[in-house]
């Protein structure tokens, strides 16, 4: 077992435990903080795959947005920060069964995928992964259409938000 594997196991465990605590933590704000840890663990996994851009984007977009989530969690929940409500409602067994079924299904689908057990291929030395990614996003043969669709979707969301918040004069 080399160093990278040890790092992978440590951060995989941290990510999973934190993700579990996100849904079990009593206070909504604590959930948000555990979510930070889970997302950070994913960022570390990106770094271990030499995907520095994804790691930085993960921290910037997801962890950066947690601060906003935090505000909403505080503003939209009960006034007392020592929240003492019940955490489950009647349908929790059904939800648990659904979650397990979903997990098993995903696992089976992924395990039939040819590169499921593949080792990480070494990056071509000297290739600039970042500029390759940039080229791929605007190249017609690669991901131009998904990239532009995502942009249009985001612009639509932004216009919608502006329209909703605009006060008519």
């Amino acid at each position, binding site marked *: 077992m080399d160093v990278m594997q040890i790092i992978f196991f440590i951060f995989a465990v941290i990510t999973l435990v934190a993700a579990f605590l996100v849904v079990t933590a009593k206070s909504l704000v604590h959930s948000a903080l555990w979510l930070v840890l889970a997302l950070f663990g994913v960022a570390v996994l990106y770094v271990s795959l030499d995907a520095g851009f994804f790691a930085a984007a993960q921290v910037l977009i997801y*962890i950066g947005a947690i601060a906003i989530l935090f505000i909403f969690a*505080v503003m939209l929940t009960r006034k007392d920060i020592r929240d003492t409500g019940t955490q489950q409602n009647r349908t929790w067994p059904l939800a648990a069964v659904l979650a397990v079924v979903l997990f098993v299904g995903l696992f089976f689908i992924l395990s039939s995928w040819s590169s499921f057990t593949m080792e990480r291929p070494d990056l071509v030395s000297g290739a600039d992964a970042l500029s390759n990614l940039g080229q791929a996003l605007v190249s017609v043969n690669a991901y131009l259409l998904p990239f532009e669709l995502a942009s249009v979707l985001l612009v639509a969301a932004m216009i919608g938000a502006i329209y909703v918040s605009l006060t008519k004069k």
Partner: protein
Amino acid sequence: MEFLRDPITFIGNWLEGLLLGWNIAPGVASALVQLLGAFVVGTFSLALVIFTIWMERKIYARIQDRLGPNRVGPWGIFQTFPDMIKIFTKEYITPDGADKVVYNLAPILTVSAVILLWAVIPFAPKVVGTDVNVGVLYIVAIGAIGTLGIIMAGWSSNNKYALFGAFRTVSQMVSYEVPMVLALLVPVLLGHTMGINSLVQAQSVWFVVLSPLAALLFFLSSQAEIGRAPFDLLEAESELVAGYQTEYSGLKFGMFYVGEFLHAFTISALTASIFLGGWRGPWAEQLPILGVAYFFVKTFVVYFLVIVLRITMPRLRIDQMLNFNWKFLTPIALVLLIVTALVEKILQLLGQDSVLLRISVHLGMNLLIIWGTVEILRRMARKERQRVGEPRPVAIAPQTPASD
């Protein structure tokens, strides 16, 4: 002689040789040296605050026609040490109902978010923590962690003023991140890279010459990002007591205080690296120690500007601050980014790579945008003056009821 030329690399190589001499595996040895380097950079940046706090207080005092610290040491230069001893001996008070873990984690997170920035700042051609190829993105991402530390402090204190202060901070930092990122994209376009050290290497002409507007936008929005005057709405005494740090005492408050000073200095270092050519200067490539000197001279010049701005500007109201961001900085940054991208691409397509042409076109475009902005502002001001100057219905004093 080698030691004088480039002491930091020399010590690093010497240490690694020493560790290898002790039969330590090469991988472990280089990891140990890197760990030590990270420790030295972190400690150095924190120790620098001892000096910058004194410097800031002294300049502050001089501009306000006071003497400033002048008792401990020559010109009061050791004033920070008694202050430190005082803050170390103070009592920690944790308010009732505070969320203990989050409460104690917040100052650590805030300070470490600032120290993490020093990992990508290049001191000399080869003396840089790590030249990640997404350095600019890394800086912005680390800023997000700083925001998180502040909202954690505000929420966990169980104090409404602290919470309101944290809300304000988040709205300020998140909004000013937009023009800051847009302004940072201009050097990325000009240098064709995102790594900070590669950006410094790309500045055969300083980017402040190519794009003075981008430098100005970055400087202004980073002032809001570090939350000092004129943008110091996070700690408004009359409205919010001390903002998010109301409940903190002793060294925990000291962490926030040090974090703020260090952040101001770090932002100056970043401005110097990204726009003022960092370690670049005559003979910096041959004599790396000169590069370190150039870097610090430039950083202190920018830091002096930061201090002067802080002292001489009145603070903004919260609505003015947000208007300034969304209606002034962001539109200009967007226009500048589009224009710079177009100019850069057109020059590339025409195959023109003469430095002089590049400077004149970019600089001309920047000046054009500045002129246009000033013209729009002048027109708006004229309209506003007319509106104010028009005769308004005069209030008539109500007739006093005739008393009988």
